[in-house]
């Protein structure tokens, strides 16, 4: 198992280096630069432009800038934001728990609903349940998140008044961050009603963010189940007179879970992309909104280091998924 983990870790090194190049180049390929955007309609003289560019260190050859960036990375220095002047890592760590909280909730919703729906749709293949659920999944998958989020806000917060419109907790609760996870901090604060308020704020954004992964997971579960249920060992189990619940629960589902887990793991990337829009609509102070703001301001250090941190994280999750295969299927860890 240790060799398995080590070999997986080794793969990460070139991938990580590749990401540093992509993250570094991405924001520089975009037209426009931070100095121009800062000046706006007013304009900036070429001398002042050059002076500011030099002050930011962006007058050096790009390759040199890249190695500077890499060198500082190895010392754990992710740079400072051009706008807020604060260390990128500090900002990331401040905002990251909000995204994790939202992402975890979304993935839990997506899995808890998506897997059973997929299983049921596979068992009752061709039934009205199968057709309705898979059509809904297709609609969910193609839903423009921005529109969907706004629609839910107007319905549940505006018309029905069941959920708050946006934010992480009611403004009347005010306590310092301990973990950065609002559900935990609200409990720790000991303020009455804080936890309920945090939870109610989490519902709509989680549902919106869960929509696409939920659709993907349900469809993937269904097709994996269908495939497994056609296998000889399932037929044999059935022929032996095993009750259907055991056939499905033990033989089919366990084997169908491998592609489903892969899918769930891959949804982390989708979640990050979805978080950008979801966080903007729901005024959720996470890293998605932070990235959008920084890209539009061409805040180079934030975009490059932020992308790197996010990519690093997605890689880590994928690694964990790979390791989980090893746990589920011993044959994988020996190859």
């Amino acid at each position, binding site marked *: 198992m240790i060799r398995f983990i080590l070999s997986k870790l080794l793969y990460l090194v070139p991938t990580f280096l590749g990401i540093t190049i992509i993250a570094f180049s991405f924001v520089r390929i975009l*037209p*426009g630069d931070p100095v121009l955007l800062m000046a706006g309609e007013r304009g900036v003289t070429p001398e002042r432009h050059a002076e500011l560019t030099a*002050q930011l260190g962006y007058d050096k050859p790009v390759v040199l800038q890249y190695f500077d960036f890499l060198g500082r990375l190895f010392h754990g220095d992710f740079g400072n934001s051009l*706008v807020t*002047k604060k260390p990128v890592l500090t900002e990331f760590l401040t905002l990251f728990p909000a995204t994790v909280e939202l992402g975890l909730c979304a993935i839990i919703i997506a899995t808890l609903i998506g897997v059973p729906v997929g299983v049921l749709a596979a068992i009752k293949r061709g039934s009205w349940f199968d057709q309705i659920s898979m059509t809904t999944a297709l609609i969910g998958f193609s839903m423009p998140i921005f529109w969907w989020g706004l629609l839910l806000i107007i319905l549940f917060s*505006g018309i029905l008044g069941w959920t708050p419109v946006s*934010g992480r907790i009611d403004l*009347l609760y005010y306590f310092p961050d301990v973990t950065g996870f609002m559900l935990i901090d609200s409990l720790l604060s000991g303020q009455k009603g804080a936890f309920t308020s945090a939870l109610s704020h989490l519902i709509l954004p989680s549902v919106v963010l869960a929509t696409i992964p939920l659709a993907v997971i349900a469809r993937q579960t269904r097709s994996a189940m269908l495939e497994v249920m056609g296998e000889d060992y399932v037929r044999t189990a059935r022929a032996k007179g095993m009750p259907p619940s055991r056939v499905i629960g033990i033989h089919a589902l366990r084997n169908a879970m491998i592609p489903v887990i892969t899918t769930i793991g891959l949804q982390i990337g989708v979640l990050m992309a979805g978080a950008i829009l979801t966080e903007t609509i729901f005024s959720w102070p996470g890293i998605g909104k932070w990235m959008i703001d920084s890209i539009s301001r061409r805040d180079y250090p934030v975009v490059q280091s932020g992308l790197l941190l996010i990519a690093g994280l997605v890689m880590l999750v994928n690694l964990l998924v790979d390791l989980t295969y090893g746990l589920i299927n011993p044959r994988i860890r020996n190859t």
Partner: protein
Amino acid sequence: MKMITRMLVAASALAMTSAMPALAKTFVYCSEASPEGFDPAPYTAGGTFDASAHPIYNRLTEFKKGTTEVEPGLAESWEVSEDGTEYTFHLRKGVKWQSNEKFTPTRDFNADDVIFSYDRQGNAENPWHQYIPGITYEYYTSMAMPDLIKSIEKIDDYTVKFTLNTPEAPFLANIAMPFASIVSKEYADALDAAGTREDLNNMPIGTGPFKFVAYQKDAVIRYTKNPDYWGTAPIIDDLVFAITPDAAVRLQKLKAGECHLMPYPAPADIEGIKADASLKLDEQAGLNVGYLAYNTTMPPFDNPKVRKALNMAINKQAIVDAVFQGAAEPAKNPIPPTMWSYNDAIVDDAYDPEAAKAMLAEAGVTDLSMKIWAMPVQRPYMPNAKRTAELMQEDLSKVGVKVEIVSYEWGEYLAKSMEPGRDGAVILGWTGDNGDPDNFLSVLLSCDSAGDGGANRAFWCNEDFSKLLKDAKITADPAERTALYEQAQVIFKDQAPWFTIAHSTQYVPMSAKVSGFVMSPLGDFTFETVDIAE
């Protein structure tokens, strides 16, 4: 509304701990953007100033609420020397600095604070010039303060003398701008000693109506009333900014009672807001202009007659109706009607395609093709540049002018549109900084601004026009200045370097329970006068 009631209860709980009246009033503002920081000097965004300069700080001079008139601020009075280059400010006595858990002031505001606040921006040798690596003072620089200010001297603790290199009539308005906020020298020294200089930008201390309490990044900013405020004390006890970037969501929050007031509603929502009895809507002509700037150095656009003909071929009212949804006033002058010296006697060129056609033929222009540049972003002065360009394209095709619409990414658009020899006319606009006509006319249309680093995108250099602006800049008498600017607008209209599009209306929706909010022509959001009905 349930939410607000609950908020009041909790706010009063908070207030009791901080020894304030038991019935605390909390006002929630759904702000549109996160502040970049809380030191106003290094930043340029209005959203940042609403969170820093306006609630927390004061300046030597201030804009009178709801106007662009300058009134005394931290300077109680001032004298200007005969030649207009020396300003002696008499500072207000007994102005208390705020405190926070790390700092308690030992003295009141005085001349040292004024000198420190300016010197750190203008003097590269000042140890606070780069108190955060990479910090710059773009507003100070772009308002030409480094060239303008020769020296600042402390005469005594409550008297400061500014000496300028040249007379500058808008100077008093310039120093009422957010970048010129006065920060505490004593606080800076304390931070220096503690080795936490960046806290000047994180934990601000000012003299303004509200004290900073806390900022949760991208989510919430909290302030509390400054009990020692030297001016009229705020009516509300606590002020909260709930950062909500999306306009539609802001409106939902306002409707749900999660906030009391919001900036920048979407134009499409205005009718719905007017119809909602639980809300009210303040409106005011914005201090802005949207325009189409020809390249007046390129034939045939170097001929005023051609420009005039094109202006007459475009149906301005149709643009105001379709693009601004009526929320704008068609523009005839380069400055908005709310600004002093606006020349209302000027008659706009009539929309007359037939006459335009004839004028083009007279100028010998046939088969004209041109480009129109449409901005890729929405700005307060222009909700949809692409749609505007399309309407122009259609109108111009009727007089036989073929238009190609082009666009670039925003940063690139700003840079490329200032390149000499630019092909095409550019849609852009301007929002005033300080309410002075010079801040529009000199910045956007003078000979000086037609070159590198300027913002004169028509590259229009008319000696007579520029001379009038220069004279007005060194004239102290407002009546004389008004006459000069009025004359300048006559030349502008005659020479037509722009097609002036519109001055867009600014709207502020708020809960019907809110009273006392005063809209600022400069687009600032300030809350010391607001109240909420129980």
